[in-house]
């Protein structure tokens, strides 16, 4: 479903320094996979996530999503793809502080072409177990609940892939596991999930681990190998 071929991305720091965030990354992700992207900070994880999420454009290589090369599509078409095909979950949740949980979840629908939006937000919140928190504001929710609202928001448009960038980075260990359980359950239900994390124990619970180092993909291991170690 997702195929990155020889992706390169180079930044220019304000001081003129060149940073090669990604170098020749080739990665294929099939529908229904649960992939953990690991690496130290500065290894290129976030850049990879931004490229996968069509928020950033690679300088080299191609990105095939559902059989189309999308890396160089016009800005507006990429926005439409983000809306329809991709769901984002961030480390810092990025909820609108003055909006209710339901309003937050329904935000992507504002930019959707769907004819009927009735009940989609409600159903997404129910799916993450927050049916009774619809009209709470983020400040009235725990960290775990806030991240679940964010997951519901990522799901509301039924995307092909869920991209979670350090979704547990701001949460305590127990809540982190809770969030991972939510993601695992979604994956079990058929959703493709890509999880960026620096936490090896979390990564170990995913079906596949891809490790980045200095912008290069240095390891790509399938479930059978890592599953045993985690349990």
């Amino acid at each position, binding site marked *: 479903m997702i195929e990155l071929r020889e992706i390169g991305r180079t930044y220019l720091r304000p001081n003129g320094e060149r940073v090669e965030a990604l170098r020749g990354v080739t990665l294929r992700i099939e529908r229904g996979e649960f992939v953990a992207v690991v690496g130290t900070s500065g290894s290129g994880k976030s850049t990879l996530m931004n490229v996968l999420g069509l928020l950033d454009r690679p300088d080299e290589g191609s990105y095939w999503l559902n059989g189309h090369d999308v890396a160089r599509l016009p800005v507006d078409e990429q926005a439409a793809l983000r809306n329809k095909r991709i769901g984002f979950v961030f480390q810092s949740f990025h909820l609108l502080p003055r909006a209710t949980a339901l309003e937050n979840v329904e935000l992507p629908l504002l*930019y959707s072409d769907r004819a009927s939006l009735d009940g989609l937000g409600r159903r997404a919140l129910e799916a993450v177990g927050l049916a009774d928190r619809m009209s709470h504001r983020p400040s009235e929710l725990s960290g775990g609940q806030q991240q679940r609202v964010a997951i519901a928001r990522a799901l509301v448009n039924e995307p092909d892939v869920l991209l979670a960038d350090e979704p547990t980075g701001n949460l305590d260990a127990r809540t982190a596991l809770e969030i991972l359980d939510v993601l695992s359950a979604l994956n079990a239900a058929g959703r493709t999930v890509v999880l960026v994390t620096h936490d090896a124990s979390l990564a170990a619970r995913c079906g596949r681990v891809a490790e980045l180092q200095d912008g290069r993909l240095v390891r790509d291991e399938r479930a059978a190998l890592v599953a045993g170690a985690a349990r």
Partner: protein
Amino acid sequence: MRAARLVGSSLTAMGRYKLRSGFMMLGSAVGVAAITLVVSVSRGAERKVLSTVRQLFGDSSVLVMAGGGTLMGGPRAGAARLTVDDVDAVAHEVPGLDGWDAQQGLGVTSVRRGEKSAMSRVLGGTERAERVWSRGVSRGEFFDAAAVGASARVALIGETTARELFGSEDPLGAEILVGSVPLRVIGVLERFGTDLHGMDRDAELLVPLTTVMRRILNVDTIGAAKLLVRRREDVASTAAEVKRVLRARHGLSGGQPNDFSVVSTVQVQKMVDQARRVLFLFLPLAAAIALLTGGAVSAALMLASVSQRVAEIGLRRAVGARPRDVALQFLLESAVTMMAGGLGGLLAGTLASRLAAARLHLPGDVFSWSAVALGLALSCLVGLAAGVLPARRAARLSPVEALR
């Protein structure tokens, strides 16, 4: 459909950022209120000016005043040596005149009836005043030439003075006192209203000219005269001719200034046009500046809001907003908020112009749909203009940077 949803969400945003919206609305409201007030009061003032000028001057006339009199001021005793004979001579020598009336008056003075008294302007005129000033009596009779010839002790009374002295009683036939001179009321003057100075012209007494001159003031000069010109296009030349005749009669040589002043409807028309320009150009311009100031403040507030909501903008981009959706959101937020403030301003402005109209004795009904449309359109326009810069800035943010 997406646009409709965006409008809805901008209304929601207005509620979410109450403080910012409140200040923006205040700026817009003040501007629109000022424009509404100025436009409707100017409109009332224009109607007032035109109707009063028509009442005083008619279509074509020349006003002669003793001394350096002012246009709208009443005639003044003792200013110079304008006499009935002067006006009579003018009427004979200048062609194209259609009648004249001379005036002499006391200004505002106390008029008594038994125990009661009323402050009232006392004015002397000829029997021709009825036609020349287009103001007759609503009850009773106007005094005739014989009364003027005999310096008859009679008076025509204005409605206000009648009410103050007589209440609901019939003033006709009753006797009133001006100074120590008793006058019999023979008629009630037609209602006039207030003049351009805001003076109530129904608090007035009209007495035969000779009665004022000989019995009350004991003078042989007049304060002013009004000459009707038969043909409108002759007004300017007639005014010049009147000047020439008067200068000759007063023996003024080349270098000496006039000891009288002449005002024609042509000049009045010029002054009215000038006043109009002030009313319809400069005042609304001044009010529009208030709205522009509000717009500038709003632009600054919206810019601050964009900086404050960088993460939100990044998020919206991530969930599928195109740059133009983000731009539209901020434009709409600005326009919707300013229009909401504009509505408030319309309300306040309309109320204020009602009050102003009542205080200034202007024609009452000042509400107009065109003012409402203008106020809303202007506030919407200013809102859009104020939103342009913030919207561009928001749309140009890179989503990756914004989400960091």
